[in-house]
């Protein structure tokens, strides 16, 4: 998996869905704490990751280490894909 492409895909989804400008989306901060998404947003993003990268996210993986920023999410997806 190309991480840069994956980040780009996720960014596009976020920009389209949450009506923010690209420069307003930090790659290494929590999207919730920044007010870009609310609790519903996290659920939408999790579904987006599952569908786009054909992965299944398990209960115990729902932690800030995996979802705390765009970079963390993509690294998490990457680990899932590599282990698959």
């Amino acid at each position, binding site marked *: 998996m190309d991480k840069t492409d994956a980040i780009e895909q996720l960014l596009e989804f976020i920009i389209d869905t949450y009506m923010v*400008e690209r420069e307003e989306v930090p790659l290494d901060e929590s999207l*919730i704490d920044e007010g870009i998404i609310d*609790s*519903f947003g996290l659920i939408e993003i999790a579904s987006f990751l599952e569908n786009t990268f054909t992965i299944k*996210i398990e209960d115990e993986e729902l*932690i800030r280490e995996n979802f705390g920023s765009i970079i963390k999410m993509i690294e998490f997806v990457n680990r899932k894909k590599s282990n698959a």
Partner: protein
Amino acid sequence: MCGVFGVLGHSSDSDTRRELIKSAISALEHRGPDEWGIYNTSKVGLGHTRLSIIDVQDGHQPMKSDDYVISYNGEIFNYLELREELVAQGCHFNTHSDTEVILKIYQYFGVDGFVKLNGQFAALIWDASINSLVVVRDRLGIRPLYCVTFENNVYFSSEMKAFDTIPGFKRTVNPNHLFEHALFWNTLADKTVYESIRSISAGTYEIFNSSGEHKVSRYYQIGETLASQKQESYDESRDSFKALLADSVKLRLRSDVPVGAYLSGGIDSTVISYMVNEQTNHAFKTFSVAFEDERLDESKYQIMASAEIGSIHSSVVISNEDIDNNISNAIYYGERPVFRTAPVPLHLLSKDVQQHDIKVVLTGEGADEILCGYDVFKELKILNHWKNNPNSESIVQSIQSLYPHLDHYADKRRFGLMKMYYEGFLNSYENDFAGLNIRMTNNKVIANYFNKDLGITYNEEEQLETLRSILPDDYANWTLMQKQSFLELKTLLPGYLLSSQGDRMAMSHSIEGRFPFLDHRVVEKAFAMPDEYKLKNFDQKHILKDIFKDNIPKQITDRPKRPYMAPDLAAFIGDNGAMTPMASDMLSEQKVNEYGLFDYTMIQKFLRKFRRGVPETTGYRDNMIFIFILTSQLASYWIENPRYNSLDENNCKVDISE
């Protein structure tokens, strides 16, 4: 209920001043369609439009007694007791109205008399003995009162639209206040969304001398009796709270015209209706909002409650089209943007009440604020437990209990995601904002939609500073639940529930709402109760449910709390993605640029998301953003297109020129 207007120091001739007052109160005619009156001198002008409820024959206003003249909106519920007290002191009364009671309370006790009043009121009292205008507002801000200084004159009014009639004056939206309003669903302290117009703060009075200089004094603060209230056991609290609530209802049934009640299908309004029924020996009328969209409709519970109580029930069924057709009018009356369309059905409900010849309704507002009825109280409890027990395994289950009515949370796995969401507040919930941190974080995204030229940014420190200006000295010593109660009573309740959704929607059809849970004795009692009486584990309003468990249907007390909701986005965007003509017009490039508040490109981007209609899963945030922008545009529209009414001279009952 009525509309009041006042002006200080208008130096024009008597006829011009009378005309100015008359046209101002013509904008308040809906608040008081029965009659109007004017008191007009070179020092002060007072206007009044009256909805006659107590002493229909004689209680005309403005009312004069010796050196004192009053124009007053509202009710003093304990006026009979106060009248007795005054008579015992040798006071002579000319009418049987509560207006004369408040006037004479001031005459006998001065501003120290305001603490004696149990009611919902805004009053302008001219005191010629000190050449000053005394303005006072009820403890919790149930009745509105605004003030603006323009060209060296100070003006007062029940509604801001009356200021539109002042020659040369035009309301202007202050974008920073508008953003603050978006963060909290209310502007903080005494600000309004408009430039230079402020509110008289709840629980205060102000004394203006004839040159407009003024001094503000507070006569009530929420929680002021905390230290002096005696600690009661749970059983004692149950009994004393029930007795107090019954007395509050009894006082609020005082009226010379028939009284009805709103019935939402929830516990609060059912309890109030039950208590009304207990205290009257005739069938009374209850009123409800029902929806065509069955996901929002609560008719089943409303009918159940009405049947149990034995009321004569009426409901209005609201469609998506009704929302679209009436939201503009609702904003005309409400005068400020809202975040959901829920006020619109209440605007239509008050019309139904009016058609049933009822002028006064009792409602259940205030119970959620004083008895921990909102989810935010549970959220704070969870955060606090989590902070103190970081490894607790029950956090996810607790979060799950928060939203039983949201379908997509049925997938249990998703609660892990919710936990991550709440984790972000572990560091902030203990600051002065308590649960408002959650509301602010969810709402700050709105900054992105403002016109970039306005430079709107979110600055938490600044907001905290403003908030601290309204906090009482002992706030830091309160429990989290008490803090949140206070914040709800100061933000959402007056800024949205009692005004946009309450007073203004009821008064749009000349209906007066009365709120037994907001009797200050009830508020103080609830405030002083231990938290666990109100929120037992996660059982909200526990003591209230317990008191009435044998009196109201179990299905109503046991059901999960559902917020009262009306169709939002779906009322304005069809399945094919087409917007209604009204919404298209208000969100057009021309109108967005003309009013200058928002960024048209951002609005377009937002709307693109709904080009194939409004998905079932659309959440709180998108609905809120859309309704906020649309209704901000409508508020601007009404600034540009003020309505002018004229009053019938035959209805003028007081016309004093001195």
